[in-house]
């Protein structure tokens, strides 16, 4: 029998798979990215539906409750994604800065010639 919390988690995972699909259709992400997201949420879906599959994993790391495994996994995932987003933002910021500087200095050169 599926519990209420499991039901919500399944709905959420399915929505996220749909979101990955829509993003792919809009060409916001490529085929590989869409595949990775679909795979990740499918694994999450399986873990929610068959939580006992994680029991061996939890016992290996001396974690008594399955919920703790899921929470820890979630934290690791969130921290990783925040770090990646931070690095990407910095890279884009740097590129914009360089482009703006290049344009500004080019304009200065043109003004001098005039």
């Amino acid at each position, binding site marked *: 029998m599926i519990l209420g919390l499991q039901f919500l988690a399944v709905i959420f995972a399915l929505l996220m798979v749909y979101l990955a699909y829509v993003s792919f259709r809009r060409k916001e992400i490529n085929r590989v990215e869409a595949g990775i997201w679909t795979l990740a949420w499918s694994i999450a879906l399986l873990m929610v539906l068959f939580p006992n599959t994680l029991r061996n994993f939890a016992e290996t790391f001396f974690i008594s409750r399955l919920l703790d495994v899921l929470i820890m996994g979630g934290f690791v995932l969130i921290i990783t994604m925040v770090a990646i987003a931070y690095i990407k933002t910095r890279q884009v910021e740097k590129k914009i*800065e360089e482009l703006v500087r290049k344009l500004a200095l080019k304009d200065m050169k043109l003004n001098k010639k005039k």
Partner: protein
Amino acid sequence: MKVFVVIPAYNEEKRIGKVLSDVKKEGFDFIVIDDGSKDKTALVAKKYTPNVVKHPVNLGKGAALKTGCEAALRMGAEAIIIMDSDGQHKASDLIKFTTALSSYDVVFGFRENAKIPFVRLLGNRLITTVVSLLFGINVRDILCGFKAFTKRAYQRINWSSIGYSVETEIVAMAGKYKLANCEVSVATVYYDKFKGLTVEQGLGILFDTIRFKLR
């Protein structure tokens, strides 16, 4: 030594004219960087110098200063003085920097007896302590925007901050690379009570200071 004054500006059409007029009277070459202003800052600046560089979008003080320094180096600068465009610094203090630059790589201005708002003073002290502990450099007024450095020092510091953290990064890198430095007192006038760093920006600078350590 060929010295250029680099003046970043953002929405300063009301005050920049007086600043540029004073700098011109002192006989310095200068470059204005309009950091994507929405007002007529660039137009006002062009009345005083052809050396006006305009960012198409607002990036931040650090980025504007870097653009100005790059432009100055292309024009043959051997040393650069940076100052604010809101009139809080006096052009008559520029000579103190050029004198000190003949013996030092980096010159820091410090606001003596200035009526700095309490919260800003507190933030300044905190950042000064953190920078002193992390980089082994003691500068009285890290957040003062009146500074100078030689071309060699600029290339060594090579800051990455695009915002207000640039002031801290310059001091931190001067400490890290052990650049010869000194301080000169500068007069300061606060025209606008609400201008300057916010608490949020101050916390951002503290976070950035740790990032500079990892550079």
